[in-house]
């Protein structure tokens, strides 16, 4: 069967690619578009390392098919920083040592950004439950929560 020809917007750029029916969006991002920032931890939507935004909604890209994004907008970790400037969330992760091995970090940044866009002043509990879909095995989550809260403060200050 011939591959599908898909046109979508990825990180603000008009993008086109070919994919098989069974290819996930994660496969397309990593293998076809060489955007390896989204990670594959489980392929079953349980770890959140593949988190991306699809039309402004937080999804696991391992649970979305490549051909499903035709005509849609995808935003990945690679699009979070604007030019040379890190997003406050990225900056706070660094300042608070909210990463150790860093494999889960792209997923947490994308998910955290989605939270703060929806809820600019989340409580600790709201942060923890929103991020419950992102597994981290290194940090125990403590410094991640601190970084997200501090980023919320920075973003509210403008």
């Amino acid at each position, binding site marked *: 069967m011939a591959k599908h020809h898909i046109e979508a917007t990825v990180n603000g750029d008009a993008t086109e690619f070919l994919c*098989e029916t*069974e290819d996930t969006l994660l496969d397309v991002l*990593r293998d076809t578009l060489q*955007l*390896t*920032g*989204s*990670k*594959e*931890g*489980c*392929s*079953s939507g*349980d*770890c959140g*390392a593949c988190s991306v935004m699809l039309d402004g909604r937080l999804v696991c890209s391992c649970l979305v098919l490549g051909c499903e994004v035709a005509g849609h907008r995808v935003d*990945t*970790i*690679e699009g*979070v*920083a604007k030019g040379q400037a*890190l997003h406050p969330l*990225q900056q706070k*992760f*660094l*300042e*608070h*040592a909210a*990463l*150790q*091995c*860093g*494999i*889960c*970090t*792209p997923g947490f*940044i994308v998910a955290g950004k989605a939270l703060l866009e929806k809820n600019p002043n989340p409580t*600790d*509990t709201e*942060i*923890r*439950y929103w*991020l*419950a*879909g*992102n*597994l*981290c*095995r*290194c*940090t*125990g*989550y*403590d*410094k*991640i*929560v601190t970084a997200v809260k501090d980023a919320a403060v920075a973003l509210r200050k403008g």
Partner: protein
Amino acid sequence: MAENGTNGTNGQGYVGTRTIRPDGVDKVTGRARFGADFNLAGQLIGRVLRSPHPHARIVKIDTSKAEALPGVKAVITRDDFADQSSEFIPAGEMMMNYKDVVRNVMAREKALYEGHAVAAVAATSAAIARKALKLIDVTYEVLPHVIDVVEAMRPDAPLLHDDLFTVGVEPKPDKPSNIAKRVEITLGDIEAGFAKADVIIEREFKTAPVHQGYIEPHAALATVSEDGSTELWCTTQGHYIVRAHCARLLGLDIGKVRVTATEIGGGFGGKTVVYLEPLAIALSRKAKRPVKMVMSREEVFKSSGPTSGATVRVKMGATKDGRFVAGFAELKYQAGAFQGSPVQPGVMCAYAPYDMENVHVIGYDVVSNRPKVAAYRAPGAPISEFAVESVVDEIAKKLGLDPIELRLMNAAHEGTKAAYGPKFGPIGLEETLNSIKKTEHWNTPLRKWQGRGVASGFWFNIGGETSASLTVNEDGTVSLMAGTPDIGGLRASLAMVAADELGIPYDKVRPIIGDTGSLGFNFLTGGSRSAFSGSMAIVEAAKQIKAELCARACKLWEAKPDQVEFKDGAVRPIGSLGEKAKPMTIADFAKVAGKTGGPIGGYGRINAQGAGPSLGTHLVDLEVDPETGRVTILRYTVAQDAGKALHPAYVEGQFQGGAVQGIGWALNEEYVYGADGKLQNAGFLDYRMPVASDVPMIDAILVEVANPKHPYGVRGVGETPIIPPLGAIANAMENATGIRFTELPMSPPKVLKALREREAAAKV
């Protein structure tokens, strides 16, 4: 030549501060490349055919149909690996036998666990590779299997290896068994000890296998050239170890194999051995193209080593005023399909936190039809120390003593003779206990169904072979190259040490992790050694640079060695020499390096000795929901001795991460096997690790009792934090419910069952 000391007193003092890690920007932007992020033009995708049976003889493997499938470029089986003789060598983090390693990498006579590799293919796409696996015809003779350690020890249990005879028993057995080894330590006279006891508590405990749970699956990319030279990129804790294993298994000169450690997405001990790497190389050699292999999550659970499940019996005796007078334990640990569980360290650590005269611990290393166990953060110790810390708590309750006071009364300290032999140097257990005592946490009242528990933990830590270099660039910046993969903060820590030693700004030091072709041997990242050993090597490298610069200054200034000294980032003239010579910074020397002898650098090549144990105490408050059995962790505090925290935030990170792994181990994680010997929960949904909503903030108290054998006083810290949570949580459960849980995990169904049974018994 007078020279500044190596205790970081060069005036700037980055060590001990919370710098931004130099590799951080790449990690928060997705730019950093982990194992599966590497690709080579023309690469093939490799996939592994794995045994569906937990125990079976492999009668025949027919790969002809797979080889004929268009797009398949190579197929390998046991025939592609030469057999290895039986020889014990340090491999990864435990003594391994290469005869076992080659069989774990690719099954030979038998498949010994569900998931055991039986064949592998390399094809032009993942889809074709998967199709090819289905075309490989394997004839199995299914055999009865055994999973549980006690079952496996029975004389009539299904036998995994007919050439495995128990070592460590007299007389030497003439029949093979699943018991690979019996180990033992004794101190004093255990029976005399029990005779002195006013209270004796004896309990049996059971733990299940748990996985390290790293989020990044194993991945390897190999390319073999026509002359046999091999390049490998893989996610590993030890690329020199990977190189050694692959060279051995594939009959290559070590020098012909170059391994690059990619960024690593977690290891915790599980990435200290090889799985895909030798397969990728063998396939690449056969296919004459690069081969990339990545495990699925299911493969990670089924085919990579978790840690042992175990059955542990503990018997402790104490006098009525709380002195521990006798400590006995018998540990039975599962090794998985091949021998080598961490029962030996489990035996040695069981009573290590305490100053005791009479100790007797026996351990059994037992094989069974599950994946070969791999190291997991302080291997063996969490299990045995969980059991002992639980009994210590019962002793406290029985004697009406405060559990912290009881531990303080018996705490090991400098000069205590460890149960495993030598006397301790300075250690910080008492300091951690006192820190916990002073917390607001310890003094906060609790409500019904809430409980509080405390437990301590001990781990040795190691040093080992380390090579690291410092190179001064033409503009005075310094390139630092270390050889132990950075699992979380190492590059930052080493850069701070280099900056302090040389007296230059932190951001002028750029650290990288070199590949195996760039540095001498490095033992792996594990054993809580990378910051401890790496910093020692960097101090050595810096010493060489300072000596070199002083020598060049003498030549430039026509001075004698005692007229110059290195201080605050520059070589400075002493006394009257100052009238004709001006200080020269590292950058000044760098500008004239060529003219004054050549490039400037230092190379530290050491076998780091002097690792000091790290001890810790954890405090936990939890609440039990009597209707669902669900346990909520309300509050958690860690106090642990770091010796000297090079980077406090990353040291706290180790405390917090290890504590949460321990919480998962205590409350929810376990390998669930069916009666068919197959793993039922090979995914993150049902192998339930803690998520952010499961845990509170983890308060971290940094205790610093300097290790006198390290230039900065550093102790390894990474492993100890996973040890106390198991006992602390079990003790808090007893405090909350009045029930002593002796089986891990204390998951909701088990808690509910125990509560209901007690209710029913009360009604009778």
